[in-house]
């Protein structure tokens, strides 16, 4: 009987070890605001992150022939330039909360996946918001 339990525990431990060495840690994608990102750039160098913030007013440039969308993502304090390959999603506009998944290359955040954050209670942020408030706003919108 003890053998069976031992086998069960071994299987579980084996699976756990496999998960950890299999790179659960490397495959974690962190959700960050631009401030958090800029404070610890080295930590997130060359790995995918999800960057959440607001589309800064007056920075949106979309080239429909090259299918390149450029804008600046801000959380009120820090700013990050973003390049997204592809069409802007349906509700993309200035001042909107967005989440971009991608990585930093040559000083520009190159996003593959661009999500517009929206919910019924979403309100455009006011002047002088702190990064924490921006983060909360984006996390709460679906």
């Amino acid at each position: 009987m003890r053998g069976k339990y031992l086998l069960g525990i071994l299987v579980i431990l084996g699976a756990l070890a496999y998960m950890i060495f299999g790179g659960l840690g490397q495959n974690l994608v962190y959700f960050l605001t631009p401030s958090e990102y800029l404070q610890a750039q080295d930590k997130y160098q060359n790995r995918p992150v999800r960057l959440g913030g607001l589309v800064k007013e007056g920075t949106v440039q979309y080239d429909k022939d090259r299918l390149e969308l450029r804008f600046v993502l801000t959380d009120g304090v820090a700013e990050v330039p973003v390049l997204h390959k592809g069409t802007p999603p349906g509700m993309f506009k200035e001042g909107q909360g967005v989440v971009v998944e991608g990585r930093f290359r040559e000083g520009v955040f190159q996003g593959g996946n661009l999500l517009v954050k929206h919910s019924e209670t979403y309100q455009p942020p006011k002047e002088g918001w702190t990064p924490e408030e921006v983060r909360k706003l984006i996390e709460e919108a679906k």
Partner: protein
Amino acid sequence: MTPALLGNLGVSLALAFSLLGLALSLLAYLQGDGRFLKGARALVPLAVLGAVAAFIALEWALLTHDFSLAYVARNHSLQDPLWVTLVTPWAALEGSILLWGLLQTLYTLLASRKPLDPWRASLVLAVLFGIQVFFFGVMATIASPFATLPNPPADGTGPNPLLQNHWMMAVHPVLMYLGFVGLSVPYAYAVAAMATRSYQTWVEETRWWTLIAWGFLTSGKVAGMWWSYEVLGWGGYWAWDPVENASFIPWLLATAFLHTAYVQQTRGAFKTWNFAFVTLAFAATVLGTFLTRSGIIQSVHAFAEGPVGPAFLGFFLFATALGLGLLSRVSREVRDVALFHPFSREGALLLGAFFFSGWALVVVLGTFYPLLVEAFSGAKVSVGAPFFNQVSAPIGVGILLLMGVGPLLPWRRPRREILRNLYLLLSALLLGTLLALLRGYTLGASLAVGLFLYNTLAVGLLFAEGMRARRMAGLSPLSFMENRKRVGSLIVHFAVALMALGIAFSQTYRLEVEKTLYRGQAWEVAGVRMAFQGVRALDEGRRFAVEALLSTDRFGEVRPRLHFYPQMQSPLPAPRVIYTPGNDYYFLLMDFDREKGEWASLRLIVTPMVLWIWVAGGLMALGTLYILWPASRREETRGVSPA
């Protein structure tokens, strides 16, 4: 009489009869009195009536646009077509729980009609009534489908447009629930078996239930994948999304149980494992609902907001504790009669079950890990698809290897005669992999080709062996087809190998291109030549559609669309998918010139072999149906057949 009145009455009656039935069946067990059991049995159809009444009430309210019900106001609109209205009961939480409760009462009705000794019959009924008490209790208190609004609106918002975009959404949830609920019967039998110390016969008595549940879970998953592919517009069918994982976990555990239960049916072994797997599989269905419905996925903090999450978590813990608690009590007494060599059919089946349950564990950890990180450090993380793919690939290879060799191995210990077959299989595996590598495919895709050949050969060898055994017994070789269990499982195994091939190729080779075309402009890409002829707008009542007209050389006119729903601020893409045996051509309209219709941004995704994933899904369902199909009388009297 109003729908709300009828609905509340139905829910209350179903709850009351279930509570009474639970009390009577427990009394029957404790007192050993058959009269209580008779009473409990008589309550089963009454609970069904209550559930049916409640379900009819919800349909009634939807069909008569009774917006005084909060559920109708939130999930229905006057614009909805009839089929959408009819399937709206399972478009949101409260209605889904009602559907679950209704199916549970029907399954209880079917299960209660099977002859069984009075002790176990009382306990089986007690467990099933207990599950009903939970569901109808939730509906009567915290998630009522019949809650009313003080100020009903004149029209509602309608169900989530994503659910209206494809008819598959009408089918997928029902199949999933039929599967989830189906697992409750083997679970109830297992609890009764453990409590009454009759450890052997329950797997035999519930083998149809297990298969039916598995068949529904499998079809439900494939239907969900298809829906995701055809509706969500990202050109994929599986994203390791927590909601997908939540229904994958019960499927994995049910598959593990199906294989170890087979050993107990034929060899009397693995009794402890079967109790463990059936408990975990059933509990996983509740855990899946908890994951998807509590909002915990968005954030751990959402969990505390609604009462439904804690209720399901509590039910999950209780169901697990009941099954595993009884198991720890009786595991000292359970003796597996058969000793076996690891390189035998039992050995392969047990190892296979470990692979499936280990896979379930990995998916559970990957799904819950972000919640743990958020709870302990506050950081928001997500576990990406690369992690799941990385851990799943070797497990999948292990399963595919076992699937080929396992059924060829004899029971108890290996025999020399099978060596020839093993060499053949190994050659097929190596040959397939090498040839694919030489053709320039990646290692993963080549391995999938090798494994497909290996498994196809294994299925062929098993057919040949079965037919030879029939001929030796003086029967027609084709009468092997009457061995439904064997033939059906071989069909399913072949389908799994085919699906693995489709998944490997579609995940490895995928071309995605995007371009903005002006009217009249042609574009040649991925072997397709298309010309953009302009856009057209269509008013379809409940939605507004814009379609791009593309004339292509290979597929004629293709019209990918964007759907604008009034309740959604961004349009939903409606891709046009053209299936061919080799590649899928997935056309998407991304953006268009809103002023003059002069240009449109289009995306084309070309993915190989997706069609075969759906074919394999259909074959898996057919194989299961083949096993379940009632056997002819002649066959039944013959009893266990050779091979």
